[in-house]
């Protein structure tokens, strides 16, 4: 293992891993390290999401998955290392700037705008792609009204896409049943036309039937919208079923990376999940 390098140097080089040099990557993280005081939550994580792929990030509890996720969305800034979206570094940018650059996200514990209508929730997601200024809104300029109509139309299309009935569009978000709230959250994230969609445990709390539907939806979205998708997920069935590549974190470090088959048989992964004895026996 290499020593962690000073931030400035790492960022300026930003050299992709030799192994990944050839891939057309939508997101490329190199040597990302995140420290909280003495605690190292992520150490030298290299990570690539190929375009139009579905990649999963897994690991035992406390492995640093959410920390890594938060660095990709701008909630945290890496102590050192660089994260690039399509060649543009997102390190040091605010969350809304990163949304504008093309990363959309959902939350592990659903966080909708509860007291806004379903349609308005999606339209908030469209915010970064709209141009109306406050002056234009105040004066209700024709261009602003046109944009508002287009946004409404687009929001309805997205509700269709994620399988939410249009009958719900005037309902408050918090009145939706659980599974539909998950779908609404995805529709809101999609409204910003992301290149990369980050889903934080999208099937948490779902029954097997709903989980299967959600898995299908994720694949469908990738095909329809030319998206790349990064999943954080605990349900191994979902991970193995939907992912093309899997990255495993343990104690903040990347311990394995590969196709579902490779990960399934990787001794270090089994050790991380089940303890040392499992590999010995």
């Amino acid at each position, binding site marked *: 293992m290499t020593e962690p390098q000073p931030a400035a140097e790492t960022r300026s080089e930003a050299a992709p891993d030799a192994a990944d040099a050839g891939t057309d990557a939508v997101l490329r993280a190199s040597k990302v390290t995140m420290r909280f005081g003495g605690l190292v939550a992520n150490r030298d994580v290299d990570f690539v999401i190929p375009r139009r792929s579905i990649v999963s990030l897994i690991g035992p509890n406390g492995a640093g998955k959410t920390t890594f996720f938060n660095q990709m969305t701008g909630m945290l800034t890496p102590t050192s290392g660089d994260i690039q979206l399509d060649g543009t570094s997102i390190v040091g940018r605010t969350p*809304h700037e990163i949304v504008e650059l093309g990363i959309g996200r959902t939350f592990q514990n659903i966080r909708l705008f509860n007291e806004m209508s379903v349609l308005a929730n999606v339209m*908030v997601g469209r915010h970064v792609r709209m141009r109306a200024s406050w002056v234009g809104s105040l004066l209700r300029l024709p261009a602003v009204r046109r944009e508002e109509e287009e946004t409404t139309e687009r929001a309805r299309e997205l509700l269709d896409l994620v399988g939410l009935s249009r009958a719900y569009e005037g309902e*408050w978000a918090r009145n939706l049943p659980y599974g539909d709230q998950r779908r609404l959250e995805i529709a809101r994230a999609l409204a910003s036309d992301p290149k990369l969609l980050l889903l934080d445990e999208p099937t948490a709390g779902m029954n097997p039937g709903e989980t299967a539907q959600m898995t299908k939806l994720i694949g469908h979205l990738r095909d329809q919208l030319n998206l790349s998708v990064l999943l954080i997920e605990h349900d191994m069935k979902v991970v193995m079923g939907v992912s093309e590549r899997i990255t495993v974190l343990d104690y903040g470090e990347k311990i394995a990376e590969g196709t579902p088959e490779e990960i399934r048989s990787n001794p270090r992964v089994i050790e991380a999940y089940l303890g040392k004895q499992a590999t010995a026996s």
Partner: protein
Amino acid sequence: MLPFLRRAVFIGLVAGLVIAHLSLVGLVVKLDDRDLITRLVSLGVMIPVITAFVAGFLAAAPRRAPETIEPGAATALLSGAVGGLFTGLLVAVMAWLIEAVNVHGVLVNASPLLVKTLHLGLDAVPGSLALVLGSAGLGVLGAAIRVLPASIRRGVLTGLVAVTGLALMQTFVGQILTGLGLKAVNSFLYARDGMTIAGALVALVAFGVSGWAWADRRDDVRQRFRSLGSAQRTSVRLVWLAIAVIILLTPPLYAGSFLSQALDLIGIYILLGLGLNIVVGFAGLLDLGYVAFYAVGAYATAVLTSPVSPFFAPHINFWVAVPIVMAITALIGLTIGAPVLRLRGDYLAIVTLGFGEIARIIFLSDWMTPYVGGAQGILQIPPPQIFGIDLRQPERLYYPILGACIIAAIAAISLARSRVGRAWTAMREDESVAEASGVNTTKYKLLAFSLGATFGGLAGALYAVRIGSVFPQDLNIIVSINALALIILGGIGSIPGVVIGAIVLVGLPEVLREFSEYRLLIYGIVLVAMMLLRPEGLLPNRSRRAELHKGEGEDEEAWDEEVWNRETGAETPEPMIT
């Protein structure tokens, strides 16, 4: 039946205590001088009358817990009678005690005059009997209201409330009628002191019948309106719009100086409310120092336009000054907003509270005295002019205030329904998720602060020309509290709510003037009752109502059931994917 009666006794005793309290603070005797219906019913007598009536009404209410039980008609009437009876008994006992024991030294208002008023002017024994039996009778009447069919109940209540309102607002209604040239109607309705008996009866019947008719036909009318063609619907709307315009434009012609002054003040508070509503209602930033912007607006106007302002010699025209004042307050909004951006909720409230006080103290300080006159304030602020006409009189100043209110209301509505308003609402709901959904929360907070400040500055400018002078001590925290209270009263985030809230909050004290020193007591009681009975405000937007009444509705149950269905796979709708 027994639980109903037990509750009726309790309600009756509480009502009796209310009357005893209001008697002993002197309200009953004091208001006995003021006749509602001339030489028949005084305002003082109305206190026990209304209380007993309400006691009967409440005693006959359906029981809610553990399950809803509707009382039968007989039970309801009996409960009402018991409620009223106990109200009367308690008051009668109090009256007897006052006569038997001389407590005049301790309780100043426990006078023979009070006893006489409560005994309706009769001797001790017949008076007590009249009091108890009358009270029981009123309780029955109150309960009877419950038993009546809904449309008739609506009619009776409309009639009673209308007559009470007409009698209470004699000065205003009389002024308006005279102003409209309806002197004959005025002298038919009102004697010099209170309504005439004939006038009260006619008003009772007229309002009662129309209330009943409307309750009966309301749905039909709405149905008919919906079935109209779009062209007809537009013309109906135009007629309503025309009526609204006439109602808004004409008051100064007949309202007279005093009422116009009240209207001007209401208008200024509507402006304040609209501005603060952007900050608190839309963006969810609790600002308790809103008076700072009002003060800056007032002072900037004074400095720019007054010929005697100590520092700025050229006194410029009001209409030129207004945009400058608005720009200044917008800037102040930005500068106050910037340092407090990181704060949320309670912390923001406390810091803004501080800013509000700082503004007043700065205007009062020695340091600023050369510029804004310190405690002496700035005088001789000239009134605005239109085509050379001075708008000093309140009747004339009404129009620029009305114009400002309409523009501000339209601006607020346009913003609320736009990308900007959505971003604010999202921020109010969950700031970090709004940021993660692409809303630049820093920018939108500053925008809310400075737009709100601009409205406040405009209100301050109009305030300055209305009074003709500004003093730091008038621009205190009470203004902030009132602006916030009127938003909450009307329904937070709701623009019609701001208008209603301002009318009630600023108009009510004017109406209550004849209650003299009890004015604020009554005002406080009304506010407390309001918030208990309708916490969502008078005209809420729908989401707030849902939030505050969620325990009473079935929203949550429905949700749980749905979740259960899903989790058990009982009902699994197919998404669009194939």
